[in-house]
């Protein structure tokens, strides 16, 4: 569950933290598209490395590394399944390795790009930017709260796992099916307590008059600045450069 630490916003003062969420969203959308567009592992590595300067400037290295480290388990999983699948279909081990590697890098790149976004964007700013993009406030808030409760959920999952282990549950015991079954005693309390919490939050919001006024106004309004223009420019140029690798040089 460590992977989730990489998505929990921490206050920061770097220029990346101060960039408008909408600018960062442009970067996220462009580069997410690239991860899907390319299959060559070297190009995917370049896509991944686009997040490195952002990590360095915003000084979020430790948390970012945690999210990457935490995802290694899934990556191993993806690699193995992809490998087996390709060997099965084509019989070529070399193809399978290449495909497994690019699948894994693609996944790391996605985690890295999103992790950079969520680590440097405060939930309030994100909601505000969504509202300014004319997304209804209710939906923006719902999204924001879903993100907000991810770390809470991961902490709770840890407590539940501890409680069940104390009753003799061995998570790593048995074959694959048994191992999946071992998660039932963890998932059920987690789901039920999430529902209970959702109800509590709804009650708490209503008792503080949520939705009482039809038209909301904002205390702060986000505005694009020079640094946003620069950030978008760099994102778009590097996006076009990477895209040209395929359109001009024909690298898949």
């Amino acid at each position, binding site marked *: 569950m460590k992977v989730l630490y990489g998505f929990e916003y921490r206050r920061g003062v770097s220029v990346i933290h101060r960039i408008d969420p909408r600018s960062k969203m442009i970067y996220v959308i462009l580069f997410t598209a690239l991860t899907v567009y390319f299959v060559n592992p070297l190009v995917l590595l370049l896509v991944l490395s686009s997040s490195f300067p952002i990590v360095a400037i915003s000084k979020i290295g430790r948390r970012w590394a945690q999210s990457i480290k935490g995802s290694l388990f899934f990556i191993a999983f993806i690699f193995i399944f992809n490998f087996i699948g390709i060997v099965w279909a084509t019989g070529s081990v070399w193809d399978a390795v290449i495909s497994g590697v690019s699948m894994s890098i693609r996944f790391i790149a996605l985690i890295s790009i999103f992790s950079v976004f969520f680590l440097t964007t405060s939930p309030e700013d994100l909601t505000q930017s969504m509202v300014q993009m004319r997304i209804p406030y209710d939906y923006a808030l719902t999204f924001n709260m879903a993100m907000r409760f991810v770390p809470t959920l991961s902490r*709770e999952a840890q*407590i539940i796992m*501890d*409680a069940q*282990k104390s009753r*003799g*549950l061995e998570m790593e015991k048995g074959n694959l099916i048994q191992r999946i079954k071992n998660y039932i*005693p963890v998932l059920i309390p987690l789901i*039920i307590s999430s529902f209970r919490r959702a109800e509590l939050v709804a009650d708490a919001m209503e008792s503080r008059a949520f939705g009482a006024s039809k038209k909301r106004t904002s205390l702060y309004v986000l505005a694009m600045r020079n640094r946003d223009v620069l950030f978008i420019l760099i994102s778009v140029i590097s996006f076009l450069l990477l895209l040209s690798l395929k359109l001009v040089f024909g690298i898949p």
Partner: protein
Amino acid sequence: MILFDDVSYSYSPGRYALEHVNLNIGEGELVAILGENGAGKTTLVKHINGLLKPQSGRVTVSNIDTKDSTVATLARKVGLVFQNPDHQLFAETVEKELAFALVNFGLPPDEVSRRVDWAMKEFELTQYRDRPPFMLSGGERKRLALASVLCYDPQILILDEPTTGQDSRQKIRLATLLKRLNSEGKTVLVVTHDMEFVADFIPRVVMLSKGKVIAEGSAEEILTNKELLMSASLLPPQLAELSWDLALQRPTIDLEQVVSAASKLVGGSPP
């Protein structure tokens, strides 16, 4: 029985949750672990069944170093009941919930059903046998969580905040049960904020503050020490406060003693 030898543990670098803790709890003791929020109480008890392993120092339970054992092995000996029952109840019925640990430990079916019956009777849950645990009230869920651990009869029993959300009748029931288990030779540890519960029922106290053991001794001695309670942000039991107000020479948490001292003060004979 339970031995902490210079144990330290921290969740994030630079901030200790436990700092050089030394503690020795003998077989058959009944001990309360007190301390303010975030004092390290839960971290401490998680070391006893191996959920956490000391980052430095050693924890031994019945001469087994917890580092050399697994939670599943230690859990057979050490029953740990968590604070929030909703973090562990998951089965379709109360009966299955109680059987979960028993099945995990590989007990034979007739033994499982015998122990489930015992636990339901002991905790007044028999009428809910086929009910889903989530349909029970808060207090009943708390009892069920406790029963689901007690039913496998661990040698050491650790309860994290067992009295929250329980009415006085259930508290007394719990205390009676703990006393009985204790007199049968079980080692019982209770992590709590409930000072009255400790004062009335638990003889020995270990007090934690900011990750350190700041005091250890009899409940009488520690719960009447004003400075100590203040420094750990704990409310003194009412009898201790009464003894201070009456300016008793030896403050006490024993009802009889306070009553006789008070009646001596007003010049009457003890009732």
